[in-house]
C-alpha cells in the first residue's frame, strides 16, 4: 500500500466527515477520493455548503475524518494526534484559514517570522523571508502594525505570508482571496504562481473562478462529493499566442 501511495504528495481515499449536534446530522464530506502530485496546483470550487472547507480542514489535520484514509508523502496521517499534526503544519503543510487566525498581540512581522522560526529557520533567515513575503504582497509598510489594525484583505495576505514562511511542500488555502479587491487578488495570484514555479504544491478552496482558472486542475465539489475533476490546459500560453485563441463572444462588438 505504501509503495502505491508514496508517489503522491497527498492522497485521500473514501474520506467522509459527519457532524452531529442538536439531533441534526450533517454529512459534510461523503466519500472523497483525491490525489495531489508533488508540485501540483489544484483548486477546489463548489457552492457554499458543498463541503469545500471541511475537506480542506480534514486534509490539513484540523478536523478528524469520520472514515477514510489520508496519506502524506507515503505516510498514513489521518489518525495522528493533534500534536503530531501541529508538527506537520509547522514543517510541511502551510494552512491559510478563511478567517486568518493571526496572533493578535504580535505584530504583522512577528506573526510571519514566528512561523518561519517554528519551521526551523534562523532568526536572520526568518527576517529575510518575512521581508520578502510582505514586500511581494504589498504589506512592507504594515510590518510593525498589530493585525487588528489591518483591513480584512490585509489580514488575509498576512495569513498567506505566514503560511508560506517556511516554504511548505504543500500549501492548503481556504478562500485566500475572499476579502480582496482585484489588485490584491492579482498580487496573491502572482505569489502563488511563483511558489508553484518553485515546486510547491498548492490546494486551494475558492469561489473566484479567476483564481480557480489559474490552477492546473479544478475539482468541483457538490454535496460533499467530487462532481468533476478537470485538468486545465497545463502550459500557460504566451500572450502572443493567447491573442489568437478563440475569444468569448462577449468580446465581439455588437451593432
Amino acid at each position: 500500500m505504501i509503495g502505491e501511495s508514496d508517489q503522491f504528495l497527498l492522497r485521500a481515499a473514501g474520506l467522509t466527515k459527519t457532524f452531529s449536534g442538536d439531533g441534526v446530522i450533517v454529512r459534510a464530506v461523503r466519500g472523497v477520493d483525491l490525489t495531489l502530485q508533488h508540485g501540483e496546483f489544484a483548486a477546489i470550487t463548489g457552492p457554499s455548503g458543498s463541503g469545500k472547507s471541511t475537506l480542506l480542514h480534514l486534509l490539513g489535520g484540523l478536523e478528524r475524518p469520520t472514515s477514510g484514509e489520508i496519506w502524506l508523502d507515503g505516510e498514513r496521517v489521518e489518525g495522528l494526534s493533534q500534536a503530531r499534526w501541529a508538527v506537520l503544519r509547522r514543517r510541511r503543510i502551510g494552512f491559510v484559514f478563511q478567517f486568518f487566525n493571526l496572533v493578535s498581540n504580535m505584530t504583522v512581522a512577528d506573526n510571519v517570522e514566528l512561523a518561519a522560526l517554528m519551521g526551523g529557520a534562523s532568526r536572520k533567515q526568518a527576517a529575510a523571508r518575512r521581508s520578502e513575503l510582505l514586500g511581494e504582497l504589498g504589506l512592507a509598510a504594515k510590518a510593525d502594525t498589530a493585525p487588528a489594525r489591518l483591513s480584512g484583505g490585509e489580514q488575509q495576505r498576512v495569513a498567506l505570508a505566514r503560511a508560506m514562511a517556511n516554504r511548505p511542500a504543500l500549501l492548503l488555502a481556504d478562500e485566500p482571496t475572499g476579502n480582496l479587491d482585484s489588485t490584491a487578488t492579482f498580487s496573491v495570484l502572482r505569489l502563488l504562481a511563483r511558489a508553484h514555479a518553485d515546486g510547491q504544491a498548492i490546494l486551494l478552496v475558492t469561489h473566484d473562478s479567476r483564481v480557480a482558472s489559474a490552477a492546473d486542475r479544478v475539482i468541483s465539489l457538490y454535496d460533499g462529493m467530487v462532481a468533476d475533476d478537470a485538468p486545465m490546459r497545463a502550459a500557460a500560453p504566451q500572450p502572443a499566442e493567447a491573442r489568437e485563441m478563440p475569444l468569448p463572444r462577449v468580446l465581439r462588438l455588437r451593432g
Partner: protein
Amino acid sequence: MKMPLLALLAKEPAHGYELKSQLEQIFGEAYPAPNIGQIYVTLQRLERDGLVRSQDVVQTTRPNKRVYELTDAGREAVVEWVDKASEGPRVHDGFFMKLALSQLAGTSDRLGLINRQRRHYLAQIRSLSLLATAADRRIPRLLIEGAMLHLQADLDWLQRCQEELV
C-alpha cells in the same frame, strides 16, 4: 460592426484601412483583429442605406483610395446609438437548450453537460487572464474584465442549473 465604424467616421472621414487600424488601436488585445473585407462590405451596406457617402481620392503612385464620410442621416444614427441604453447580455441559450432538451435527445447525462461547459468557461477565463496581463491600456483591459465577469456569472448560473436539474 456597423455602429463602431459610423462612430469612428463621426470624428473625421477615413478610408477602410484607417478604420481598421483605429479599431485595433482602441481595442487592442481585447478585440480580434477586424477583417478588412468585412469592413469594406459593411461600408458598402452603410452607403446603400444612406448613412455614409464615399468618393475616390486619386493617388499618383498607388491605386486610388475610397474615402468615406458620414451623411446627416449617419450622424443622427450615431447620436441615437450613443444616447440609447444597450441591451443586456442574454443567457447562452444554445447551452441551455441542450441542457433542457438532453433527455428528449436520448442523453440524460446532465452533469456531464454541465461539467463540460464549466471546463469550457474556466478555460476561457484562463485565456482572458493571460490577455488581461498583457493588456497595458485601459480600454482593452476593461473590456477583458467585463468578459471575465460575464463568465463568472455564467459559472454561477451553471451551478444553479446543477442544483435544480441534476
